[in-house]
């Protein structure tokens, strides 16, 4: 296999630059279920960090903690020096954390463009009053952000679907639209929860290409959760493997791929 790296990705473990995200000792319980058990990791600037693990290992839960949807019982999460624990999801979004959802989080009744515009919500100012009045500030703002959204539409080749309600989009397109919405947020950290699940080969390749392009152009840090090992192994700089909420291994893809505990818990024969 190849681990080519088109982006000038900084060495993750480089001592000089502090990581953009630092997660320490994260523990999350639901009643009797321990979803996360003292998980720690750090993500460097511009790094593509993958998290893998069996179903129910706690991958999505990490995202939910980062987003402020779940409140961990223990642990700290630091983004660019600021703590995230205890903040409201919307505040965290405004700090530059964007996300795609495992089970599609598009707003079904809004068009694709509107969904993308929503990504820019925290960058816009129009309130109820100015919105109602339209002419002037609101209109200018709409036009400006629409232009920004169009760039993403172009990047992700979503042109034919602009006006289609998100609920009617073919699955693969919907997943791409989610990526677009997350990008529209102009994040500094992008969380991707199974971006190619349910996609056919062609779409998977497309998505890989977008991710590579995004990295090259924006250089933002990403955390990728995915069961498609080709994507993880080809794209990630480092991989964290979880099992039952416990980190069982961290390292370069090639290391993880051959890690016996990971093979035992997760990969099975399908490497």
């Amino acid at each position, binding site marked *: 296999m190849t681990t080519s790296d088109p982006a000038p990705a900084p060495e993750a473990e480089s001592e000089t630059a502090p990581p953009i995200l630092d997660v320490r000792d994260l523990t999350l319980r639901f009643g009797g279920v321990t979803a996360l058990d003292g998980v720690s990791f750090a993500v460097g600037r511009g790094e593509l960090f993958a998290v893998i693990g069996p179903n129910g290992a706690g991958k999505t839960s990490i995202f939910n903690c980062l*987003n*402020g*949807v779940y409140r961990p019982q223990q642990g700290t999460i630091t983004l660019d020096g600021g703590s995230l624990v205890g903040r*409201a*999801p*919307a505040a965290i*979004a*405004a700090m530059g954390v*964007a*996300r795609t*959802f495992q089970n599609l*989080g*598009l*707003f*079904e*009744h*809004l068009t694709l463009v*509107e969904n993308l*515009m*929503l*990504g820019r*919500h*925290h960058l*816009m*100012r*129009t*309130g*109820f009053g*100015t*919105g*109602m*009045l*339209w002419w002037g500030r*609101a*209109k200018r*703002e*709409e*036009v400006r952000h*629409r*232009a920004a959204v*169009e760039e993403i539409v172009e990047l992700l080749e979503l042109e034919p679907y602009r006006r289609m309600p998100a609920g009617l989009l073919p699955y693969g397109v919907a997943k791409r639209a989610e990526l677009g*919405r*997350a990008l529209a*947020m102009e994040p500094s950290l992008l969380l991707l929860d199974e971006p190619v699940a349910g996609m056919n080969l062609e779409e998977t390749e497309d998505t890989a290409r977008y991710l590579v392009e995004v990295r090259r152009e924006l250089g933002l840090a990403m955390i990728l959760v995915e069961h498609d090992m080709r994507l993880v192994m080809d794209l990630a700089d480092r991989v964290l493997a979880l099992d039952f909420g416990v980190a069982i291994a961290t390292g370069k893809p090639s290391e993880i791929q051959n890690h016996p505990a990971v093979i035992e818990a997760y990969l099975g024969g399908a490497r």
Partner: protein
Amino acid sequence: MPKPHRNLVRDYAQDLRLFGSPMSKLGLVLMIAAFLVLPTVVQDDFWLSVLIYAGITAVGAIGLNLLTGYCGQISLGHAFFIGAGAYVTAKAGGDFGLPFPLWLLAAAAGGAVLGGLIGPFTLRLRGHYLAIVTLGLVFLGEHLWRNLDDFTGGNSGTSVDADVAIGPVNFADLSIFGESYSRNQGWFWLVWTLVGLVALLVKNLARTRPGRALQAVRDRDQAAEVIGVRAGRYKIGAFMTSSAIASTAGALFGSYQQFVSPDEWNLLLSIQYIAVIIVGGLGTVFGSVLGALFVGALPALIDRYSDVIPGVRTSVGDSGFISVFALNQAIFGLLIVLFLVLEPRGLAGIWLRIKTYFKTWPFSY
């Protein structure tokens, strides 16, 4: 020869226009023409008053649609805010004698404040639970209206003596170029101007940042939060805006009817508004207007032509078995059922189908 590319959009501003296509421009012109001419053609007070009430209902329904259709919060408490608007008008426009624009604003502000007080309930309650709590509002309201004698006149009700003049133009007694118009004609123009205005405002709201946020909250509030929409804030905002609009409708209702009493703001009224927005189509401004016309005009039509329907009792002692009102209600109920079975998206859905039919014509698929 038709110009090619008449639909070509050259920039985003153009793409965002409300009446962009030639068809919709034509529609707009037709609507304005109807608006201007109708009262001079239909001078009959009955029909004018039906249309005026329908217009007032349309205003209120647009407000409810903003809350329920766009933001997904079901409210059965709309009647409460309508009533509040009417009482504010009785005070502000009647007793204090404020001019029309001011009492209208006062009513809207009153509605917004009340909405702001009730709004926080939406943070904790969802779906039907919220609906029933807002239903409680109707009953609490009725209790208040009965007991706040100084403000509402208590059980006796209060007359609403607010004038509807903007500067020298008095809509209750219009004369233009020496031609004088009846109160109902003037009111028609007034109310439907406001319908247009409110529709435009809400449409604007819906297509800008806050409107998208509302719809996002409706579709998935958790996901909305995660992408940066403060759901709670928007729910409360929607509640406030919606009740401000409801109170505006109430203000118009009160001052048109000139008298209001506590038992008018009941659950039936709330349900009627729900009927309007569902029959019209949830989440569409135009649907609210269609719905209001339907719900307002259909009973009037049945009422007018009931004597030709066999079996209807139009006067005491004649042999019919069902009263006009009962028949009216039954037909209305049947039509609602029929409608929604055929088109659960309401009138707006039918409208859409007609449009796609003509767009795809002559190909059925």
